């Protein structure tokens, strides 16, 4: 579903990803772990088309299409969802308005009909409820004044509303309390565990993987995937540390 070959990405002229290969087949959940500064968020941003993250070599295809040719909003409409490590605050724009306009923009890009106001509200409330986010928070400006954990829950609510084909989740588990971690883990399973979907989970900790069992675990270090394995690899990393496992 997501095929990445020999990906090179630079930010501000500094090469960060240096020949990264990764293949996530449809229906699978893959986890990426790796030391701080390894390039995990850079991978997420490059796949999401963030300006300033320049792909200097390699390819990335998503559901058979050249991902790198698409504008960021087209990638979203094609079914790619990026859960941000640091969700962005947008003062003055309510969560509801933001998501309704976003979802309908995606639908227009896909040539689908827009969702009515009432149908959208129903969908948003349902998703907020499922993630344990008070529906009133959807009336507040996007992420403004949300706690760290609320922001991550809200990212999952957004994912539930967008119902993407593929999600790249960048440290969605960081900053969550025990209950929120459980809610987020169950949310990922509920929204994304399906034979026609896929997930790339960027994480530092095994605890999220207790809820969302990965099919494969990869170690990203210094801009490359240096080791891949089954779920056991995450446990081994947690026990022994990167230096030991990667050496």
């Amino acid at each position, binding site marked *: 579903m997501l095929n990445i070959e020999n990906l090179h990405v630079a930010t501000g002229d500094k090469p960060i990803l240096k020949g990264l290969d990764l293949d996530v087949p449809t229906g699978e959940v893959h986890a990426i772990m790796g030391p701080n500064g390894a390039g995990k968020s850079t991978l997420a941003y490059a796949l999401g088309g963030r300006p300033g993250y320049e792909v200097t070599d390699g390819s990335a295809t998503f559901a058979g299409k050249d991902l790198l040719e698409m504008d960021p909003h087209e990638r979203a409409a094609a079914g790619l969802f990026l859960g941000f490590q640091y969700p962005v605050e947008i003062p003055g724009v309510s969560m509801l308005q933001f998501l309704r306009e*976003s979802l309908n923009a995606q639908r227009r890009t896909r040539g689908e009909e827009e969702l009515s106001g009432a149908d959208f509200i129903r969908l948003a409330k349902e998703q907020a409820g499922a993630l344990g986010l008070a529906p009133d928070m959807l009336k507040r400006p996007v992420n403004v004044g949300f706690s760290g954990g609320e922001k991550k829950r809200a990212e999952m609510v957004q994912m539930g509303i967008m119902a993407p084909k593929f999600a790249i989740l960048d440290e969605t588990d960081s900053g969550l309390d025990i209950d929120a971690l459980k809610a987020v883990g169950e949310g990922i399973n509920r929204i994304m565990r399906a034979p026609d979907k896929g997930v790339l989970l960027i994480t530092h900790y095994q605890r999220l993987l207790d809820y969302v069992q990965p099919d494969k675990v990869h170690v990203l270090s210094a801009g490359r995937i240096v080791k891949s394995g089954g779920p056991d690899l995450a446990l081994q990393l947690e026990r022994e540390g990167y230096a030991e496992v990667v050496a």
Partner: protein
Amino acid sequence: MTAPLPTRADEAFRYADIKALGEVWDDLGPPETVEIAAHKSLQQTWLPSGDPIDVKRARIVIEQGAALELYALNAADRYGRIELDVTLHAGADFAFRAANVGSGDATLEVVTVVRHVAPDATSTQTVRSVLGHKAVGSYLGQVAVAREAQKTNSEQDIKAMLLSREATANAKPELEIYADDVACAHGATVGELDAMQLYYAAARGLPPAQAKALLLEGFIGGLWDALGEDSEIAALARTRLRELTR
């Protein structure tokens, strides 16, 4: 007899488009007079006339314990000017929420004098400018607090967003205070659309023009909160912003 046409040497016209003003000057007439009787309250909304040159001037007196809420959208294609001279008596309240939204080579300005002549009055001015192309948007605001006007509370909150390198924003809040027990706050900022916010919106599926329009709506939207997002002024401002980002 009409007064002579001002020049840019007049402080209140330092950013004005004098040529445009000259074209309407003889037909302008004296400023409209608005008087709010003691303990009454009034809400007014000023929409753009639709003419390329759109000058609105008012002398406003808010009597003891009275209140005025004034909403204005300044969005003429060539020259828009909103000029207010407001006098507040004891315990009066003046709330002014205005936006300059301009593109092309429009010159838009809000020029206010707010006179606190008696104790306990409150004035809040919130002005947002969104300027594209070569537009110029200005705020000149004087708050004068007389010696008798103790416990005056005044605020000028001025922000501008520039959408192009050639657009210009001017902000000049001025305080003239003769009382000693007052709270007068003022702040002015100029900025650009935030790249990370734009990217976040794009990542959720919004095409660039729509993402910009949404962020700008957020920037000025708070002005009309009390009127609701379906009010005529909010809808008109939204339309203007969409035109600006297309």
